[in-house]
């Protein structure tokens, strides 16, 4: 089977779907001739023509608004927002329009569209190339939010997102585009090639939205994670010798509550783990859900391990990043309590 990194897998998802469905169009800043600043759309314009893959003006509000109109027509647009940090000018169209179109028209209009965006930190991108704003979308009814953690899932989830008949926000942890970063930043980078999830079928397949994966089975504590943090969680568990079960949520709305509940009821302990700022982060939702549903199984408080409630700093990248040290302390506490 071909070996792909995340970028290649995402590129392949576009390619497979554009080939299958003439209604798919791909657009965004620099995505056309150039193929995107991370090259996720490389080669598509050449293959499918300029009217199916094109550069857009630099206006995220326009990109989303226009994509909504295209989806209302019956196309299936896949729009790239160059960095998740720049999605806010499009926030109104996402929240007020995309999220409510099906509802406000009682199903007369619906929007099969995907907004992809590189996201998260760990690349010394400073406060405007590092953000993880997933919680802002999770709070909005009518929108699904997906965050893959490896090439196989990235392709399968993106295809599922493109096929979904509702708007999907698809955040791609850019730190793991080229390799499964585990948070040990002093160590040399491993490429995807050495990871089993880099084996990616050439053609069509899906990974269903709304289904989590057990990234590492364990018995003593459950770690709920997604994106880059899945790798950090696994590496931390190994490093600390803790028998943690790591759940890779993959989709945060709708979240796979069954898998979460089953795991926490088994382990009796839970750590919620994400890179976004803590207050009002999606970790709060996860913590609340676990507490509501597993209260009588919990042997210690659900803890949140997250980015701090500050903008992402440039020089203090690794002091901000919720790496193995932060998670390790929390895991020990979860087991001690």
């Amino acid at each position, binding site marked *: 089977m071909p070996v792909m990194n995340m970028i290649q897998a995402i590129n392949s998802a576009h390619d497979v779907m554009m080939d299958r469905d003439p209604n798919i169009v791909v657009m965004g800043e620099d995505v056309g001739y150039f193929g995107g600043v991370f090259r996720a759309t490389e080669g598509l314009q050449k293959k499918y023509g300029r009217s199916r893959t094109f550069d857009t003006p630099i206006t995220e509000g*326009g990109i989303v608004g226009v994509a909504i109109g295209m989806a209302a027509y019956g196309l299936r647009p896949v729009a790239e927002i160059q960095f998740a940090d720049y999605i806010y000018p499009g926030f109104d169209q996402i929240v007020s329009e995309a999220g409510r*179109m099906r509802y406000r028209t009682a199903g007369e209009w619906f929007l099969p569209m995907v907004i992809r965006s590189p996201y998260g930190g760990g690349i010394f991108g400073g406060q405007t190339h590092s953000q993880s704003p997933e919680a802002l979308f999770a709070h909005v009814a009518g929108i699904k939010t997906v965050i893959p953690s490896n090439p196989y899932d990235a392709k399968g989830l993106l295809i599922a997102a493109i096929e979904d008949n509702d708007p999907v926000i698809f955040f791609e942890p850019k730190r793991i585009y080229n390799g499964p970063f585990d948070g040990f930043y002093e160590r040399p980078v491993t490429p995807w090639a050495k990871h089993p999830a880099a084996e990616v079928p050439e053609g069509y397949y899906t990974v269903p939205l709304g289904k989590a994966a057990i990234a590492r089975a364990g018995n003593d504590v459950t770690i709920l994670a997604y994106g880059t943090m899945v790798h950090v969680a696994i590496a931390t568990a190994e490093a600390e010798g803790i028998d943690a079960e790591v759940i890779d949520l993959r989709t945060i709305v709708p979240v796979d509550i069954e898998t979460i509940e089953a795991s926490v009821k088994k382990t009796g302990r839970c750590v919620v783990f994400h890179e976004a700022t803590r207050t009002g982060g999606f970790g709060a939702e996860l913590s609340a859900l676990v507490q509501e549903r597993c209260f009588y199984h919990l042997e210690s408080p659900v803890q949140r391990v997250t980015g701090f409630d500050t903008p992402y700093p440039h020089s203090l990248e690794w002091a901000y990043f919720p790496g193995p040290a932060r998670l390790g302390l929390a895991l020990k506490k979860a087991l001690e309590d």
Partner: protein
Amino acid sequence: MKRQKERPNRPALALHVPEPDARPGDEVDFSHIEIPAAGSVMRPDVAVAPSEIRDLAYTLIRVLDDEGKAVGPWDPRLDPETLRRMLRDMMMVRVYDDRMYRAQRQGKTSFYMKCTGEEAVAVAAAHALDREDMCFPTYRQQGILVARDYPLTEMMCQVYSNAGDKLKGRQLPIMYSDREHGFFTISGNLGTQYPQAVGWGMASAIKGDSRIAAAWIGDGATAEGDFHNAVTFAAVYRAPVILNIVNNQWAISTFSGIAGAELTTFAARGVGYGIPGLRVDGNDPLAVYAATSWAADRARSNLGPTIIELFTYRVEGHSTSDDPSVYRPQNAGAKWPLGDPLERLKAHLLGLGEWDEERHAALLDQLGEEVRAAQKQAEKQGTLGNSPAQDIPSMFDDVFEELPWHLKEQREQAIAEAGAKK
């Protein structure tokens, strides 16, 4: 902070805040409004370079003269049948508006908005478009639905959020939606429909379709970023779309000077992007028809978008929640020098000998009848109140195509709660 006094060689700055000519108590005076004679503006070929017709953004395209005669190159030369149909549709809109306004006052619904004086910008445009073209309206273009024969009862059921409301009571009154009639769902958020219309038009072009899009926006809402987003995309990709700006000179209590009308026209925005901007007498149904046709021809010929400013006046309050006498002279609308679009089209038909007062009175009666009948029909299906027509489980439908687990649980919760309330 360094201040004026420390820099004597520099004059003191002052903020300019635009203010309308007249406020309550003042006499309204429209004499400064420049009105070119009907028929005086040239009509270029649609293939003209936009740079050659910048002037069209600073004048006023008019067809009907003061006597109701159609004159000049923009006369669309419509047959009497079409003219009568347009008159009928505009009259119907007004009768409908009056009736629904009253229904709101009677407590049958929460909210209503009229378009009095602005009937032409929707009705005449709708007649100039193909039925298959997609309209992206604001809340003041109910005339499109009337012109496209959308059943009045359907409209009323929406206003009442009743059992017949196809939108399941989910939307504020007057936020109609009907795909089949090419009427895109109205949004409560100003301006968002504008880039959506452009996206729809781009999609039509991508697919090699022949349908175009037309969008409407108010003078006030042109200030939104989405206006710029829309025109930028439309200009860049030469999208087949007509971008109408309904300049009724008011945005709730705020006059159009606050939207930028002091320095130039709204049609001039088109000039800024290098696309044609036509400034049109919005109370002249023939001018509206002609400008729309011209823009539609351009769009269909892959020549790209056109901005049309429809210069008109909001004769009544913004909505049932508004009392304009608090911020502008009373009855300002009655003095609007460009008249009433219904009266103007009526005078035209009378002049042609294709209409008479008797038929007019009879038509009015008949429209009243139709509206009353439709209302009866609609009210059979309920009006808005504390006991909604929709059942509680329906509240959870259509958030997504399929109900996810959390909405299923919440639906159960809502049902249990409803039981507990009893």
